[in-house]
């Protein structure tokens, strides 16, 4: 009960020194998961009470909560006149109930708290095509003055399946020492699966030119019927991934059915424009119930600004799969990934200096320049650098331009070995000025080709070197 975040930056003395066994907001944070609506009482200047249900109470820090201000209602009118409020919440697993005495501090209309709440609201809203209507006018910030337990029964607390603190520690330790970005991505996915029990995860990297995000690592989407997940794209602002990327804050939705039902109730009450009812397509599970998107940020040493290096995304068909604690743990892991991405050896520093090592080629692919079997048509559309293999879309953009150069050099010059450096210098590959971009595109291309299990593969043969493996003759078609 000490600080007022952002007001002064220093602690103010508390009214009363709390006893050691005092209930803390952190201890009952599960009550603020939005699973069960909270009840808030406020009082008008003439003493008239008002009671209202709240779908979301936003945890800010151990001493503060915030409520979303979307419409001017009686609760809001009351707190502007009388800052006292009393909030009753229910712990979702046990049914234990608590009352939080609150004191309204102020309304924020910009800054991290506001952006985080707005992003969460947009994350919910964009799933039901309501991003335009769900405008957050402000974040009403309250100090938690006291917490009391409401007398009553409760169920036993469920046993936690894992220690998230231990998982975060071991994940961070396990990510160290990666040789390159591909290994870092793979180890991050393994850590999510093995240490956090995550079944569905994506890592997306930003396209510096368009702002879109593309998937370079995927876990658990083989059964989706839409490929492994590699190469899926998200526009900035779309869904929890796009909003987390745009606002650079974690976005977590724990109970999608409730959140969406709440959104629909509000849409019934607000929207007349059928154009707003557009459902935005979204990569990932068809029917997720929990989602968490965490920005991977990297810092220039000595500079306060953060760069968006990627998005770590996990989801589940189960409700309440990701809690506040999961979010804290994965934000910690994402911070480690961001720092390690910055510290990776520059792909071009040593490239083309190591000799190419013999590739461990699959038995069905011959490297001798004598591909056999039915030819594969590789079709390239110059307008967007999209590449199709036998009429099936494979890839587009920078990665498409890279593949087109590789297959042209292969068919005209018989080349199989390439270096990152020559791609970086190639005039026909439109690389934005972004350090990890080339390596990210090569990872994307390599994994898309591996997904296809077809005639073409790319294999790393050394730092900054790779080999194009061609199993069947290629027929190239350039489309304008």
């Amino acid at each position, binding site marked *: 009960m000490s600080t007022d975040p952002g007001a002064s930056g220093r602690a103010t003395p508390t009214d009363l020194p709390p006893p050691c066994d005092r209930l803390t907001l952190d201890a009952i944070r599960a009550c603020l998961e939005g699973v069960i609506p909270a*009840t808030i009482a406020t009082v008008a200047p003439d*003493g008239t009470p008002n009671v*209202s249900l709240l779908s979301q109470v936003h945890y800010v820090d151990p001493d503060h909560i915030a409520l979303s201000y979307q419409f001017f209602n009686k609760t809001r009118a009351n707190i502007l006149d009388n800052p006292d409020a*009393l909030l009753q919440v229910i712990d979702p697993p046990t049914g234990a109930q608590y009352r939080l005495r609150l004191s309204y501090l102020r309304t924020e209309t910009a800054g991290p708290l506001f952006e985080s709440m707005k992003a969460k609201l947009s994350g919910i809203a964009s799933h039901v095509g309501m991003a335009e209507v769900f405008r957050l006018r402000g974040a009403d910030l309250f100090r938690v003055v006291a917490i009391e337990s409401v007398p*009553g*029964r409760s*169920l036993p607390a469920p046993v936690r399946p894992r220690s998230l603190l231990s998982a975060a520690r071991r994940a961070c330790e396990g990510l160290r020492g990666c040789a390159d970005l591909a290994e870092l991505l793979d180890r991050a996915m393994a850590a999510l699966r093995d240490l956090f029990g995550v079944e569905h995860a994506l890592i997306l990297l930003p396209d510096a030119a368009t702002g879109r995000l593309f998937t370079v690592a995927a876990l658990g989407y083989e059964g989706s019927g839409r490929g492994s997940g590699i190469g899926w794209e998200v526009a900035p602002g779309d869904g929890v991934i796009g909003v987390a990327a745009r606002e650079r804050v974690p976005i977590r939705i724990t109970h999608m059915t409730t959140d969406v039902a709440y959104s629909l*109730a509000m849409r019934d009450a607000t929207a007349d424009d059928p154009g707003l009812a557009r459902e935005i397509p979204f990569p990932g599970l068809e029917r997720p119930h929990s989602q968490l998107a965490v920005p991977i940020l990297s810092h220039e040493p000595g500079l306060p600004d953060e760069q968006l290096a990627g998005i770590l995304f996990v989801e589940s068909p189960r409700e309440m799969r990701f809690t506040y604690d999961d979010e804290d743990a994965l934000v910690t892991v994402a911070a480690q990934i961001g720092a390690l991405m910055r510290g990776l050896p520059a792909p071009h520093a040593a490239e083309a200096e190591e000799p190419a090592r013999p590739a461990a080629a699959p038995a069905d692919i011959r490297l001798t320049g004598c591909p056999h079997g039915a030819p594969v048509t590789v079709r390239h559309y110059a307008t967007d650098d999209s590449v199709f293999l036998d009429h099936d879309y494979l890839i587009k953009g920078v990665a498409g331009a890279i593949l087109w150069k590789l297959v042209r050099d292969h068919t005209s010059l018989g080349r199989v070995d390439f270096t990152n450096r020559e791609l970086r210098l190639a005039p026909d590959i439109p690389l934005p000025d972004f350090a990890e971009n080339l390596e990210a595109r090569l990872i994307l291309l390599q994994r898309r080709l591996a997904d296809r299990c077809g005639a073409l593969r790319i294999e790393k043969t050394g730092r900054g070197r790779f080999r194009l493996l061609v199993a069947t003759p290629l027929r190239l078609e350039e489309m304008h």
Partner: protein
Amino acid sequence: MTDVAAAGLQPGGGLGDATIAFLARRVSVSVASSDRANRPCVGRALGARASADGARLTVLVDGRANAALVAAVAETGRLAVVISEPSTHRSIQVKGDTAVVATPTADEAALPAHHTDLFVAELVGIGFTEPFVRTVCAHDPADLVALHLRPGAVFDQTPGPNAGAPLSTRVPP
């Protein structure tokens, strides 16, 4: 929304038929009061019903879990009751300042069990377990308190821009 929107105070005071009908649905009931110092009190109710003429709303609460609220109602007579249907979020709020605290009649004391059964049916339908809902509604019958309110105003409380609009002044659709 039709049933709620058509509700409101009858010309002679009291709740309209639609509000009375809404009360019989599978709803949650929450209450607030304020003491003489205008400090808020809040609690969850265990059931509610209106008299046939709508002139009186009776709310049952666990007096042990809501001791401060019951004391505040006894002190100031102020009571706000929000009635909400969890699966649709449709809600109304009833307010008055002449509430009284009473020992429940046998009839009233039977309300929480019925209310809990309805509430279980509603919440199990949206993903909660029956043991959980029954735990939240659990109480000792000896602790039951009845709060009687003569409704002074009824408001639409469904989330959205119309929340807070007095139902008595709304034109039914």
